[in-house]
């Protein structure tokens, strides 16, 4: 996912931020995404089963909603963490 997010940041920012500055954010987003994948494997199966048992079919939608919110968190946390790292590096240099 790292190359996709690297390109996404550069493309959506219309090339105004150099590739080099975006790299930490892309790497961290990729790492967080991988972490979300691992977390999903342990968390979502049991959650979907228990939610659908408690709430019916809409329970599975709750789980998908949680997954989408987690994707949003991963994207923002990755971008912010990388940008903060780059800013700190620029201040030190």
């Amino acid at each position, binding site marked *: 996912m790292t190359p*996709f997010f690297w*390109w*996404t*940041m550069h*493309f*959506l*920012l*219309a090339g*105004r*931020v150099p590739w080099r*500055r*975006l790299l930490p*954010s892309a790497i961290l987003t990729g790492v967080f995404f991988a972490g979300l*994948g691992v977390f*999903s*494997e342990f968390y*979502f*199966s*049991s959650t*979907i*089963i228990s939610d*659908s048992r408690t709430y019916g*079919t809409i329970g*599975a*939608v709750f*789980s*998908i*909603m949680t*997954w*989408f*919110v*987690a*994707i*949003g*968190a991963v*994207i*923002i*946390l990755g*971008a*912010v*963490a990388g*940008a*903060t*790292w780059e*800013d*700190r590096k620029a201040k030190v240099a």
Partner: protein
Amino acid sequence: MVQPDHKDPQPVAEQEATPARRAERKALAAARNRFEGSLAQSFVRQLKAIDFSDQVMLFGAGLLVSALPLLILLSAFASNRVDDDISLRLGLDRRASGIMTHLFTSAPATLNVATATSLVFVTAGTLAVASSLQQIYEKVFHQDHRGLRGLHRLLIWIAVLCLVVVFQSVVGRPVRNLSDVPCGPCSSPSPS
């Protein structure tokens, strides 16, 4: 006037607790000093500046109301099952995948006015999600918002995202099918 011989018990208690409190205050001050000007403080400040919790919820809700129906419509037109892809991405086991299959059971779509209208709305919603992502990145990297000038970029990004999702599904499906193949005698139930 004679002062009553009354002693407030609180100062005594405070005096007794002073060393513990002093240590606590010292630890707090040390933690605060360590946090001040640190990378963690910059990170938290940046998260506050972009309204992290609001953005996450809005982004998640946007994905739910736009990207998910888009995927379902695309899968209906492509005669391809979306539940397999979602199960693959969520890393679901067989029982949870069964629930997903039940959730996304749909007939192949035909192009009529209602479908076309919903497709337009779904595309607009997906554009909103892409725009929200663009604005998040602009805030994070301190860039001005380009407004409608960046519209073509959003459209291209959505097209590329669809291609990436389709590619991952095509690549991921054989792997998943392989993992689902029973391994002969080891998967069969014992006769007893």
